[in-house]
């Protein structure tokens, strides 16, 4: 191989290395978001952590194709979402609701206030479970700050306007169910 060929190969490899995202950085940047997405659906911290690890294992399998992905965030959230949906068929989400509700609270709250808040959260989570599936999923994903409406639409396979409509209906229905 001549010198020009060697140089172009080195450039190509270097370019690829630069373009391929670092897996450690991906874990650092997205593990928290993925954990929350999985936890919102599964309400089980251990299962949510398993989902996060499985997501990054999938990423490792598709590492050569990562450079072709425009926006990694919705892609990763979608993988986590689908894996969590798969697990949700095995794990009943109300199994650990009390523990999760307590775990979601701020540790600085006084005990009596924390107890009342936990009961309230539990009540809302129960009402959420009775919502139609699409509305519930849109509402849970909307809780994630990092996800825009278009990103939620990309995860759920819906348009932006459809997601907005789902969110509105979800809140209305949730309010009605809490009043019952």
């Amino acid at each position, binding site marked *: 191989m001549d010198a020009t060929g060697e140089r172009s190969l080195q450039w190509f490899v270097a370019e690829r290395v630069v373009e391929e995202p670092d*897996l*450690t950085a991906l*874990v*650092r940047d997205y*593990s*928290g978001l993925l*954990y*929350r997405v999985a*936890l*919102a659906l599964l309400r089980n*911290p251990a299962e949510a*952590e398993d989902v*996060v*690890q499985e997501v*990054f*294992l999938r990423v*490792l*399998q598709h590492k050569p194709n990562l450079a072709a992905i425009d926006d990694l965030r919705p892609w990763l959230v979608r993988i986590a979402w689908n894996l969590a949906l798969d697990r949700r068929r095995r794990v009943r989400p109300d199994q650990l609701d009390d523990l999760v*509700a307590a*775990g*979601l*609270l701020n540790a600085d709250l006084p005990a009596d206030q924390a107890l009342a*808040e936990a009961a*309230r*959260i539990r*009540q*809302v*989570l129960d009402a*959420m479970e009775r919502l139609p599936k699409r509305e519930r999923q849109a*509402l*849970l994903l*909307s*809780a*994630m*700050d990092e996800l825009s409406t278009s990103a939620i639409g990309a995860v759920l396979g819906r348009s932006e306007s459809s997601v907005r409509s789902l969110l509105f209906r979800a*809140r209305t229905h*949730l*309010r009605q169910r*809490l*009043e019952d």
Partner: protein
Amino acid sequence: MNTNQNNHDTAIDITLAALKHASPPAGMEARTLQRLQQPAPAAPFRWRDLLTGSAVACAWWRGAVSGAATAMLLVGSLLFAQHSMRTKQPVVSQIAATHNLVPAAVPVASPGCPAHTQVHHASGSVSATHPQAHHSWMESSARFAPSRPAPVLPLTAQERALVRLVQTVNPKQLASLNFDAQEKTEDQEIDDFNKFFTPPPAPPQPSDSQAPTNTQPPAPQQGEQI
């Protein structure tokens, strides 16, 4: 009402905020990285992957390969079904033919012939030396004979006469076909005939005053002594 609604909205917001701020368990990142560094266990070879996933990179190729495989399966099953139907029909006809022919094919020893010479009524042929072989030939020919319904035989003369009778003769005459009724009618006719031709009874004897001029003495009665 509004206060309640506000309370519910607050509760919803608190719950969503709690989900939003849920912190991952300590050391999750480290555990995840550790797991990623472990060598991945060799995935078991799956034919499904070969057909739909890893072996074929493009999505449309996967669909095309799956579609082609499905089409081949369908065509194969269709051909197999047709073939099995074709082979079933001769078997049924063979069974029917065997049932019809086997009793007729029982060899009958004809008098005067040697014991090993036997006539097969079904074919009319004689197998002198290998009756068993002939029997198997009969079976095989019956097995491979084409299955057709027996042709309609022509009517006999008696049947034709009956048909003509039924079509032309009046019901009274038809009723006479009953042998009992016919016999009664014949008896009646014989009685009528006999009544008609029997001689009339003898006239009463004349008294003395009215004696006939006939001078001949009356004929002696039978058995009367002279």
